[in-house]
């Protein structure tokens, strides 16, 4: 098995407004896969499809080698899930929640759960409803880790949390990954966090996939170029041209994808000159990708 999640040509339309169209996403085994996109782009919907909580009208979803939703029970036993909103009973204590959760998972690791309680400085006797937002988030991640799954699906697990809590949660997550070799599928708004931990990236917009690529490829291939003397009309380019706008005089700023240094001679070929290649970080690249995706003729 090379992928832990395969989404192939999935189509999902819950009503008149929103739809997921022709979605294909492939999460390699052992990867930490970042799922980026603006609010309402379909990230949570995709996650709910992967977990069998929603059913696609068309297409195929394979998780850990089994079919979703047909093999849902088998799959969910091996998947740790942290939803966007805590869904736990506020009238139970933290330790009661652990006992409750443990009953569902034969692979539950009670020692690990205790160790994480300690590491997260959580009081097991406290009612869940009385916990702070950060403490609730820690309980949620604790449940997903103690379950000892082979895949973690995290829907904005650190959104709206303070930096100290985020740090604790990420450290526990990464420790788990290096110990178990589990794959992680994580959606987030926090581009810098994703940039730090992920080795694969998918970007969604308006129910469609904008791009899916290894992080390094996306980062090293997305550049801002300073170009002078370029003709207005261009033929085919060896890179993807996301954006082109005038700077000063005959100089223009181009934003390109799939860039490689060997492509520089292209510019002399069209009678232009490449003045400078400027690196973009993931956030700049993300913004440029979305901008060009939205401007494309549909």
């Amino acid at each position: 098995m090379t992928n832990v999640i395969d989404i192939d040509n999935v189509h999902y339309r819950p009503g008149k407004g929103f739809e997921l169209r022709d979605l294909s996403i492939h999460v390699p085994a052992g990867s930490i896969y970042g799922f980026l996109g603006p609010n309402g782009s379909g990230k949570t919907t995709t996650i709910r499809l992967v977990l069998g909580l929603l059913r696609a009208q068309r297409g195929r979803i394979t998780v850990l080698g089994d079919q979703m939703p047909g093999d849902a029970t088998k799959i969910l036993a091996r998947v740790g899930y942290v939803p966007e909103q805590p869904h736990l009973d506020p009238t139970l204590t933290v330790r009661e929640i652990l006992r409750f959760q443990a009953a569902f998972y034969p692979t539950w690791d009670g020692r690990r759960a205790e160790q994480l309680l300690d590491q997260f400085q959580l009081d097991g006797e406290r009612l869940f409803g009385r916990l702070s937002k950060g403490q609730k988030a820690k309980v949620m991640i604790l449940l997903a880790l103690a379950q000892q799954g082979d895949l973690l699906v995290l829907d904005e697990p650190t959104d709206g949390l303070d930096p100290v809590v985020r740090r604790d949660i990420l450290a526990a997550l990464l420790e788990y990954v290096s110990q178990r070799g589990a794959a992680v599928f994580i959606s987030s708004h926090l581009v810098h966090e994703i940039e730090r931990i992920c080795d694969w990236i998918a970007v969604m917009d308006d129910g469609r996939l904008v791009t899916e690529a290894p992080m390094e490829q996306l980062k090293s291939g997305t550049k801002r170029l300073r170009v002078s003397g370029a003709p207005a009309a261009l033929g085919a380019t060896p890179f993807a041209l996301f954006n082109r706008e005038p700077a000063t005089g005959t100089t223009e700023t181009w934003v390109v994808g799939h860039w490689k240094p060997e492509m520089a001679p292209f510019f002399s070929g069209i009678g232009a000159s490449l003045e400078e290649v400027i690196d973009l970080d993931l956030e700049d690249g993300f913004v440029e990708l979305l901008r060009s995706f939205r401007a494309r003729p549909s």
Partner: protein
Amino acid sequence: MFDRIDPRSPTPLYAQIAGRIRVAIASGELRSGAALPSVRDLAGRLRVNPATIGQAYRELETEGFVEIRHGAGTYVRELTSGRRTRERARQAKTLVERLLADARRVGVPIDELREAIEGALGARTT
């Protein structure tokens, strides 16, 4: 040793981490036989993907700086002082190349740059 790892930099994280370790080895901060942090510890500490740490360690192993003993950790190899000196020289060259590239971009001519360097060196020795 791992301060200021910058995920936004165009230099991949694994290369930044390998670079920090190379500097520590060249400077003698990490001596022969010293153990590097485990992949798990360092991933948690730097909040980066464990695969990134693994990639950094493998690169250092290929270059002959460290030895990965399977299941037992990663250790700095016995290095001759010549090897450490050569590594320092290589790092010095990289620093100078970066300085020259920056100077060119900002439009500082070479003789002015040389003057500034000598001025800074003079200020330090007097």
